[in-house]
């Protein structure tokens, strides 16, 4: 279902109940949704057939610059269309699609695995940190920032 700014309808699986309400690892559902969307993008898990049983508000993203940059970047990376940076509705659609893919992966990799959920999450982050591209990527971003900072 298409969600536009105002309300965001997303797939809310058991990861949201467990990691937000029970374990209190994520301070809000919107934080977890964005985490899942980034994970989904990173692991190429985009679910067009997602449920829309969860509801949150665009305002929570719009009021936070870092989250706004993240959501806009996901949308551009998914579409290669610079215009999407000016289209919050499109950004939300992409967010919930990757969010659904990422949260399903999170259930497999964290909730369904034996062990402490926090430690399993740390493990997941460490895997990405150890990848070859990771440190290069941080450097590239800094370079670009310097180059484009004259804007």
């Amino acid at each position, binding site marked *: 279902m298409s969600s536009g700014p105002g309300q965001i309808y997303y797939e809310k699986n058991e990861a949201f109940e467990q990691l937000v309400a029970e374990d209190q*690892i994520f301070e809000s559902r919107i934080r977890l949704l964005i985490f899942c969307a980034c994970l989904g993008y990173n692991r190429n898990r985009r679910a067009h057939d997602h449920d829309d049983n969860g509801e949150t508000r665009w305002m929570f993203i719009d009021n936070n610059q870092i989250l706004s940059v993240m959501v806009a970047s996901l949308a551009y990376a998914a579409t290669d269309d610079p215009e999407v940076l*000016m289209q919050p509705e499109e950004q939300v659609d992409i967010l919930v699609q990757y969010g659904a893919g990422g949260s399903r992966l999170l259930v497999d990799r964290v909730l369904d695995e034996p062990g402490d959920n926090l430690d399993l999450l740390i493990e997941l982050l460490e895997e990405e940190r150890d990848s070859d591209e990771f440190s290069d990527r941080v450097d590239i971003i800094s370079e670009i920032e310097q180059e484009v900072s004259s804007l």
Partner: protein
Amino acid sequence: MELDTLRVKNFRQFYDEQQIEFANGDQNVTVIHGSNGAGKSTLLNAFIWLFYEEIELSRPERIASERAMAEINIGQSVDVAVELTFAHEDQRYEARRTATFEKARENDLTGQKIDTDISVEYTDGSGNWKRRSNPQNTLEQILPERLRDLFFFDGETIDQLTAIDSQDRVQMAIQNIMGIEILERAIRHLEHVENEFEDEVDEHATDELSELITEKRQIKTELDDITDRLEEVQSSRTEAKREIEEIDDRLRELEDSRELQQRRDHLQSELDDLEKEIENINTDIAQEISDTGHLVFGLPAIEKTAEMLRDKRQKGEIPSRIKSHFVEDLLDLEECICGRPLEAGTPARESVKQWQERAGSTELEEQAMSIVGRLTEIGDMQEDLFDTIDTLLEQRSTARDKKQQTIEELDDIQDKLQEVETEDISQLESRRSQLIDKREEFAQEVGRLENQRDDLTDDIDDIEAKISEAREQSDLAEQARRRQLVAEHLRRKLEALFEQYQHDVRESINDRVNEIFRDIIAKDYYAKIDDDYSLLILKDVGQQEAVSVAKSTGERQVASLSFIASLVSLARERYEDDADATHFTGGIYPIVMDSPFGTLDPEYQKSVSKVMPEMANQVVVLVTQSQWSDAVEGELDTVSGRKYNLEYHNPSESDAINYEYTVIQEDKTQAEVVQ
């Protein structure tokens, strides 16, 4: 209710007819002395038998005096009676319960009960005596059975009110005194009504609805079973905890274990701190992941977007030299900045119009600036995340190592205590070890049962939603369903009211309990009824923190006495206050206490004695001579309006006495005797 005279005739060891007149007014304490076995508890039971026809003593079937039974022949009978005269709500009453026991054989000292009777007489408005047609109900109304433990109690055992698992008793006492069991009964009744309407819905329902109702009932039954089991396991767990605390107390007292137990206390406290530290570290790690964890996976998308922006920058698209907005203004004005007209259809206008498409978008530029402006921050956050997590993980690892060492040292202490040659200590430690295992098992079972209970509650909610949604074809079923919903609605309202009222009452009693408790206790402790109705004894540590203190039996007894006194005082206050008597009109009740000083040290005996006259309008105290210390006598002497001695005639002490019996003797002062 104001007690006047109690007469007993051939009741247990009280041979023939004897009486006690109760003190009231300024000297409202009646003191009854008696050695162990002299009949103090029997006197307490005389009240209980009169009001409720029950005996809380060994061999309750032996109601008639053994001496009286021994003195009659086979076929003859003994009359037993307990009679109480009292005043209640401006009327005088005389209540009398009798029983007749016939001797069946030569050595029959119990007898066969051949007749019983109860009568209640009262004075009408003109002062004439009249007889109640429903005496048992009258007595029940005057002193309801649910209140009996509060007004007729054994002081040596009331400290149980402060036991860890006594929340139910405290809660029940509060409900009883405030009369809110009426609400509870209404709630139970409405549940019953709901079930009846549900039966009706079921009878007229479609197959689908009927199946849903059946399914709901099955789940409800399962839920009830799990709830019962949960209560049982929780109670066992708290009992295990209590027993461990008691063993720890004992190990602290015993010389051969004191040092090891003190070391264990210290290590246990360290272990608690380490667990708290690990928990805090985990919270910090979680906070980091929540705040910035997404960047770890989202970085490629940010990089791709940044590259796109760099590309546009290199192509000169951002920032563009000409803004689209500027071109639009020229076209609207139909004049170029050089002054050439830009009328429609002219080549000049077409030339300027082409710039509109090539000019940069202001919106894109704003977005680009917004993104670029955050890139360094994002990069830093990203790097900081792992640095912070690394540091926290290191701290956690250190804390976990320390925790492991502490656990090992605690295990060593356990082994050492089990090996102590003193039999008591090794047995205590073995028992403690078993209890700790059990406590762990109970905790796991509680967790499992709570999960099951929550799942089943969710299932019931789902099914109820489906039942509500199910469209009924039958009018009768629909009507019953509506009625069921009304009953459910009322029940929920009453439940909310019940909770609120109970909460208000607890708050009100809380202040009184503490006030009375602190009047008695010299230490810097205070008493409180917790949210879960535990009667706690607390001590302040720091400005906003209080801890439950290890209590001696004496302190627990004082807390329990304070609790009962606060209930009596609240009941009296409500009785005297006309306002707000929706559920409870209150009442004036006496307190009859058997051995209230039993386990108190002399200091507490004195303090309890001091507040005793304030505890109720009338106080009856049954004590042994050893409990009647100088301290108690000093406080109670001036407020004791009546004193009695129970003169016990013990057959084992004299050949002239064949059967035990007790004579009640009033202890008069020299002045009274002369008069």
